[in-house]
């Protein structure tokens, strides 16, 4: 007998519905699987075999053929276990035909017949709902994630027996429907948007905090330099807490990426907090950008709509760092391999930290004995094109014990966030109807239009460029940053002071080009 079960496959963060066809016919007993199945998919035969035995189900002693259609697309992952098992049961007439029609199945089987979580549930269920499928049966660990999708009934199953019982005679008690969870109406425990880390815990470091606000407000990439232990990571970790809360769409995007990466903890629903990706400097290029034979999002996609923090920037592989150039421009990363060509969203805020010299104490010549050559070599490890894309450079110095014991509390993340939000609103208004979202994205040619300078300020900036020997790129960078500072201060026009402050964040050419 023939049966057809619906399941899904991932294509980047999008997905495609897959028909799992099973035919059970007389002949020499055989279990054949066709349809460009990867090794995990082919292994499902063994899992199904054992799961059937351990739940007391008879495995048909016949010729079983499984086809995954479209058959020319490579398929990976363990989520086909459940649809194949259901297909066999239906073909062997253990469950009545027709009950599984218009239901999407996803799930990995354990040898004892339990159904285990899989990755990529959110995008696949979203696709199913779009294609008009009415119902889906997914691992109970993924049920909350599936329930985010409106317009489809989501049922979470614990075991194969449970699904079998439900399909024999469908009734609500046997496999209860997962309560829908929308962005606006989420009662789950992790719906809190409060961050554990708060800027109030950071003493002093006004320079870095100010730079963090500007960075978050205008999505300007940030580089912090300073001696070891000065609090560079401390600042970076707290930047997500001053970004505006994730919007509904952003939250869906981020959740989908985490789902595809298999990073959603079982039972979790929408991600509401911005993440913080801090890869170790030994990270390889595919791990950073995404890829692999079985494609998964890399660190830059996990940092989507949030912060990618590269600590010890000089220690990173130059190739890996240079690979950030395209995603920084396009806000997504295109990965082309022989077997696939996909893209993952990668709209991240780049935050980097490094020591000013190999020992970390330059320009304090009492402590630093690095020669000019070693400093030059050290700085040379930061690739020029990436440095060009960094809008804010800030130097940090150790806070004196006196300042700490004075108990001077810093401003809180909430206060800083309110300024960021103010600037975001101004930018939203300014760039309405354009492809721009933030001041940091505006092209040199459009700066005139969106970030105009008054005559007095323009001539001042020109004079400053001459005095400091600024490049055109630096000139534009200062205007963009000045625009964000003006937005934070709630000013419509860019003032003298905004330009001065913006210029203080430029990379000091004399230092970087020595």
């Amino acid at each position, binding site marked *: 007998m023939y049966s057809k079960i619906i399941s899904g496959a991932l294509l980047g963060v999008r997905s495609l519905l897959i028909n799992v066809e099973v035919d059970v016919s007389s002949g020499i007993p055989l279990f054949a699987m066709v349809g460009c199945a990867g090794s995990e998919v082919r292994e499902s035969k063994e899992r199904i075999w054992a799961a059937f035995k351990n739940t007391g189900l008879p495995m048909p002693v016949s010729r079983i053929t499984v086809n995954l259609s479209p058959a020319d697309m490579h398929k990976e992952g363990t989520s086909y276990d459940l649809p194949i098992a259901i297909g066999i049961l239906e073909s062997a007439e253990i469950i009545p035909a027709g009950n599984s029609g218009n239901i999407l199945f996803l799930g990995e089987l354990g040898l004892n017949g339990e159904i285990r979580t899989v990755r990529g549930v959110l995008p696949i269920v979203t696709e199913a709902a779009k294609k008009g499928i009415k119902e889906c049966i997914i691992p109970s660990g993924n049920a909350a994630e599936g329930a985010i999708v409106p317009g489809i009934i989501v049922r979470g199953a614990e075991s194969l027996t449970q699904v079998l019982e439900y399909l024999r005679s469908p009734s609500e008690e046997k496999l209860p429907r997962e309560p829908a969870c929308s962005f606006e109406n989420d009662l789950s425990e992790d719906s809190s948007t409060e961050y554990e880390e708060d800027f109030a815990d950071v003493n002093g470091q006004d*320079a870095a905090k100010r730079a963090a606000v500007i960075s978050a407000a205008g999505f300007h990439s940030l580089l912090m330099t300073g001696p070891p232990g000065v609090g560079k990571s401390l600042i970076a970790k707290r930047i997500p807490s001053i970004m505006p809360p994730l919007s509904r769409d952003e939250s869906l995007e981020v959740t989908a990426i985490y789902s595809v990466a298999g990073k959603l903890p079982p039972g979790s629903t929408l991600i509401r907090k911005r993440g913080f990706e801090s890869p170790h400097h030994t990270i390889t290029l595919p791990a950073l950008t995404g890829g692999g034979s079985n494609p998964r999002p890399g660190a830059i996609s996990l940092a989507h709509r949030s912060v990618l923090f590269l600590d010890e920037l000089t220690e990173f592989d130059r190739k890996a760092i240079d690979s950030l150039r395209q995603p920084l421009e396009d806000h997504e990363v295109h990965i082309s391999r022989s077997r696939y060509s996909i893209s993952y969203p990668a709209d991240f805020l780049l935050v980097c930290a490094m020591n000013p010299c190999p020992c970390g104490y330059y320009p304090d010549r*009492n402590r630093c004995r*690095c020669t*000019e050559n070693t400093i030059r070599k050290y700085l040379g490890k930061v690739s020029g094109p990436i440095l060009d894309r960094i809008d804010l450079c800030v130097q940090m110095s150790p806070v004196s014990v006196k300042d700490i014991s004075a108990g001077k509390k810093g401003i809180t993340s909430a206060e800083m966030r309110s300024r960021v939000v103010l600037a975001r609103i101004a930018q939203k208004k300014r760039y309405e109807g354009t492809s721009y979202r933030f001041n940091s994205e505006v092209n040199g040619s459009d700066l005139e239009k969106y970030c105009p300078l008054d005559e007095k300020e323009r001539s001042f900036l020109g004079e400053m460029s001459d005095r400091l020997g600024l490049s055109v790129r630096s000139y534009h960078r200062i205007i963009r940053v000045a625009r964000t*500072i003006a937005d934070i201060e709630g000013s419509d026009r860019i003032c003298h002071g905004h330009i001065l402050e913006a210029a203080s964040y430029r990379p*000091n050419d004399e230092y970087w080009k020595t």
Partner: protein
Amino acid sequence: MNDYAEEKRFMELLCSVKGLNGSVGRSLIEYFGSAENIFGADEKTLSGLLTPALSKNLNNLRRSLSDTEKSLKKKTAAGCSANGINFITFREPAFPDRLSEIPDAPVGLWYIGSLPSPDLPSVAVIGARECSSYGECVAKSLGAALGRAKVQVISGMARGIDGISQQAAQDEGGLSYGVLGSGADVCYPPSNRRLYDSLRLSGGIISIYPPGEMALPQNFPPRNRIVSGLSDAVIVVEARQKSGTLITVDMALEQGREVYAVPGRITDRLSDGCNGLIGQGANVFLSPDIFLAELSEIIDSKKNGGSPPREERIKRRSTCSSRIKKLHREYSGSRDLPPDLSDDEAKVLSVLGLTPLSAQDIISLLKEYDYPAVSMILMQLLIEGHAAQVGQGSFIRKY
């Protein structure tokens, strides 16, 4: 004369023997009567006179010579003059007198440009390669003052104090001489190319190493001996405890040169060497003016064969308060801040000095300002030229 030209070529060859220092070279010439005879002597005599390593180096040179003797000699001479490199031996009258005085004076020197004039005073300015902003500022104004006073500045053309003082002297139109630890045709460090090129024109490049020799670490101590040997006095601008600069000072003292040290703060590691020297009785360097006055005394007394009147000098220094005031003007512009500053700029500038401070440091000193305000004031000072930026975000005052 022809005979001397031939002999000079042999002397040049002798100088290019690795590891052969001035005193051994002179003794050999004295023993054999001429440099030519050294190359004609048999191997046994030489190995009896020299250390095994030295005689091996010399014999290797002799052997390579015996095949193509003439052509090689010509090549050395022709190669040198083609690069503008001259060679001079201690036998010639133009050989610097100051250098002839020192123990272990070299047999000969290679040089490009000219040699220091015996009629003009010459002063060695030395110090750390990785110097602080303070050292940089002192070296710059000292070099300039010496250049203006037509005092020849002798140094090693190294990074840091050496190169900065020499460049400053050149910029003021003064004469300066770089003594290299490599061949005179090798610009080391390459970052001092501009200085190297200008020294060729107004001053000179001097080396005791044959053209083409690389800057090897072991070449620098003998080079330092020449630096102090060519000078009437040595000024140490900045040095750490246990540094190469202090080795040069030892050599200078051995050669009977007056040593001046620029005092620094006791908390600055880069001034430890200088402060230590002052503690041991070195002259304290108070200002270029005072120094120049004392320098002429040193030279005069040397001419008369006496030792410099040290006590008198110290007595005079105690009454030079008017000069100290002048010193302030020289090093800190003046005590007063520039007149065209706003109140905020004056406040920030008054806390800035030659120790690099970041905006954060300034905030903890001037609590009334927040970061945006300080960053604006600093940028304004930078644009107006009252401050300079060091590293990514540290500032010093520009005098």
